[in-house]
């Protein structure tokens, strides 16, 4: 971690905080955010997703405990929990489910018209919907953290855990910030929720697999190496080992800003002159 990356990370955070502050003072953004959160938690889907994620987390947690109990290994409990199959299963379905209805439902119902003809700035609408999805995402992951706290109380030796605990939740947050912006973009492009979900899923999948895909193909070694840099799997591995790498912060945050600006333009494109 050198000074340059630290500075860029700080700049990105400042940009985000300034835009949030503008958003909060606007007022209408908060109104939409409240409404979005309400409609998320009033629908059964939210509770089904939360229950399922808790179940999967429980599985991976118990499986990780089993591994630690059986053998003398140098990985942490967190490391095993967040590299299990259940974790990646969660990773794949969670983003499409959270984001698919954001804009496509409005388009389908036609309410996008009443929304955009009300005195609301498009940027407020976008940020409100994005934040609502992100808050829901955090809430989904919250119960899993409780597992680790409970374990700490009765644990004897996990000196390594605090670093990898922070790392794991930092990467979950970062990946969420990024993939939810992808979901927003996918949802803003279509009025069909299924299409939005599939587009988001496909992207998450590719992002996960990039680096792996080329392993068996006859391509230069150097390509594989550089593409592996983009792979989510790689990032997760780095973070759960307890190394909180600012390069990943820059990577995810800058791409999130880019993708959200694409989404903004998709929402505004009807205003482009023909």
């Amino acid at each position: 971690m050198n000074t340059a990356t630290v500075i860029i990370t700080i700049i990105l955070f400042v940009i985000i905080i300034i835009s949030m502050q503008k958003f909060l003072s606007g007022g209408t953004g908060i109104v939409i955010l409240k409404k979005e959160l309400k409609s998320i938690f009033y629908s059964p889907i939210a509770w089904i997703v939360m229950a399922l994620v808790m179940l999967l987390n429980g599985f991976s947690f118990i499986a990780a405990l089993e591994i630690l109990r059986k053998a003398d290994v140098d990985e942490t409990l967190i490391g095993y929990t967040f590299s299990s199959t259940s974790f990646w299963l969660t990773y794949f379905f969670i983003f499409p489910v959270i984001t698919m209805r954001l804009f496509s439902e409005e388009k389908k119902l036609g309410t996008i018209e009443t929304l955009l003809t009300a005195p609301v700035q498009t940027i407020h609408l976008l940020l409100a919907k994005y934040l609502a999805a992100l808050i829901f995402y955090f809430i989904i992951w919250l119960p899993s953290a409780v597992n680790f706290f409970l374990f700490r109380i009765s644990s004897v030796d996990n000196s390594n855990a605090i670093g990898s605990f922070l790392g794991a939740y930092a990467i979950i947050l970062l990946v969420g910030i990024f993939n939810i912006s992808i979901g927003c973009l996918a949802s803003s492009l279509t009025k069909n929720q299924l299409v939005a979900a599939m587009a988001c899923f496909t992207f998450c999948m590719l992002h996960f697999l990039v680096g792996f895909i080329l392993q068996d193909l006859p391509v230069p070694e150097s390509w594989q190496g550089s593409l592996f840099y983009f792979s989510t799997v790689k990032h997760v591995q780095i973070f759960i080992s307890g190394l909180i790498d600012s390069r990943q912060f820059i990577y995810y945050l800058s791409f999130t800003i880019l993708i959200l600006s694409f989404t903004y333009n998709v929402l505004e494109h009807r205003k482009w002159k023909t």
Partner: protein
Amino acid sequence: MIKVSNLSKQYVGRTAVNNISFEVDPGEIVGFLGPNGAGKTTTIRMLTGYIPPTSGTVSIGGHDVFSESIKARQKIGYMPENVPLYDDMRVREYLRFRAELKGLRGQEARQGVNEVIDLCDLKQIRRQMISSLSKGYRQRVGLADALVNNPELLILDEPTNGLDPNQIRRFRELIKQLGIRHTILISTHILSEVEMTCNRVIILNEGKIIANGEPNDLSRELRSASTISIELKTSEEKVKDLIAAIAGIKKVSKEHQSGEWGYFTIRTETSNDVRESIVNLANAQEWPLREIRTQHATLEDAFVEITQANTSDS
């Protein structure tokens, strides 16, 4: 209140709205009339700033819809066609959300919502889910939404679409009542609605304004060419020619023959009353005359006449 100048909208290979200009003054109730596909909804969407015009400008209460979008939108209460609503919200909750979205806060918002609930008669359904509402109630919720921040201008796109006659009548009463405090632009293809509620009519066909005036004026213009129907007890072939020979008659057509009685429709050219000449002719020919009646042109006739004449031109 509304000022539209040289507004055009072109889609790929098709001109939806073709260089229209009009103004609406504060306090007017204007009917925006036209057959389906005439460009009404496109025009309304440009007025509300939802889609941009290809060329031309729209200003609402002095604010340009695009350069001062938020200010212009604050003055508009808009109810789109088919009234899109969130099905997963309750009526009161939805109205509260819309009120806050339009900038009302706290006590103000509560008061605004209560007022429109009373005005649109939504009291007994205010706790119902929107998904369970009938078409008529949905329409009223849409109107309540448009009214909630007490905007100066109401734009209603086909507000009575899909309502039953009783509901339409009630809706009309409501519009009249609202016209006291608001400027209203209603788009519709139902003529009786316009005739009964509006001070002014703008008829749009194929993207162009083809008539703009008071409903009575429009029908009076046509009254010069009114229609007379008569019933004569005769089956002679020459009847048509004899009647057509009377000065001022444009066209005679026989509707049908029922027994000895023949039914004719006569279109007159001028505003001269030709009924006396027809009666004299019937007496001279010894045809018993059972009915003679002038049909005054209604707005409906005006509409049909104007829109069809224009369509056949192009």
